[in-house]
């Protein structure tokens, strides 16, 4: 995705800027950070377009390691090299870690209170909805995809069926769909710049 004639894309100003942006994202991310990342980096700050976000997410999710950490590494490294990568990941982890330890030590008995259990249950349902909402938002990014709408829909449906309905492990499901999809993309890209 090269944006030759487009106005310059907003970007983080410094590793420190990146650190605080990632801290703000992480502290809003109950039950997973992805929805917040998409909202903050794509919708609000425009540091990534939807298409860039999907491409980066594809790489972050395919490589081993925590997906959101991988995404932060990529973003930080792109702007400020290894200093940016460290700043982004530190921002993502530092304050949530302190908070988590405080919770673990301070609220031992809280998990047995029915109201607290109920609150966690409700928040988990919201977190699941946020993952689905993120996916719905990203579908738009497939509009210019070289696979074409039919193959895109097919790849999405087969992935969903293999993982959600057949419960295939990721290691089995990914090659099954990803390999044909990538080969088809390579064939469609032949002769295109």
């Amino acid at each position, binding site marked *: 995705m090269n944006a030759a004639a487009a106005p310059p894309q907003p970007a983080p100003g410094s590793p420190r800027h990146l650190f605080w942006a990632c801290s703000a994202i992480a502290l809003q991310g109950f039950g997973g950070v992805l929805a917040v990342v998409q909202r903050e980096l794509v919708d609000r700050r425009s540091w990534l377009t939807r298409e860039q976000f999907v491409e980066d997410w594809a790489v972050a999710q395919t490589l081993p390691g925590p997906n959101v950490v991988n995404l932060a590494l990529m973003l930080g490294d792109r702007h400020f090299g290894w200093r940016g990568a460290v700043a982004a990941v530190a921002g993502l*982890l530092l304050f949530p870690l302190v908070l988590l330890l405080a919770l673990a030590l301070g609220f031992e008995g809280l998990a047995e209170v029915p109201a607290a259990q109920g609150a966690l249950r409700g928040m988990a349902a919201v977190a*699941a909805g946020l993952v*689905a909402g993120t996916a719905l938002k990203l579908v738009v990014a497939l509009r210019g995809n070289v*696979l074409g709408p039919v193959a895109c829909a097919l790849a999405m449906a087969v992935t969903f069926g293999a993982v959600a309905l057949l419960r295939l492990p990721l290691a089995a499901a990914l090659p099954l769909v990803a390999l044909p999809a990538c080969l088809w993309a*390579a064939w469609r890209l032949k002769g295109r710049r």
Partner: protein
Amino acid sequence: MGSLAAEGAPLSFADWLGLGAHLLVLSLLAVGGAIAVAPDMHRYIVVQQGWLSDPQFAASIALAQAAPGPNVLFVALLGFNVGWHGGGALPALLGLAIAMGAMLLPSSLLTLAITRWLHRHREDRAVRAFKQGMAPVVIGLLLATAWILVGSQRGLHGLAPLATLSVAVALLFWRTRLHLLWMLGAGALLGALGLV
């Protein structure tokens, strides 16, 4: 979580080395997110070494999932708890550092190396085909994740109210700019009142 303490003996240098080595390997196997390695960590920490009990392990994961931040922090909390039950505050911090460092270092170095290589070769057909081909696959994967998360819940009144809440949130996130904390707060309130 002291009340559930498993009367763990202090961990030896070899124990820490073993935990670190185990996580260094798991780091490179953690495709699909950190939570994918939870079953193997359970096997190592609870079944094989006996450093934590089953409830302690489950509580660590549940707390890390509920608290804000990336899910991988459950690994830090497990390391912390292993040290805590094996001696107190200082071993706990050591356990945290070892667990988190070993979990993140290999995968992060690999990610940096590969993304730099991908960036240098971003005009190659194979790289473009990979990114374009993977895009619908990872979106399908997100939908599958949401489906599994919704389906695995146990509500007071069955699954329907929770699933309705999830669907409503998905639509709100998709179509509006309503702040996420409002949605999480509403979910927490509905749950605390026993409505879902």
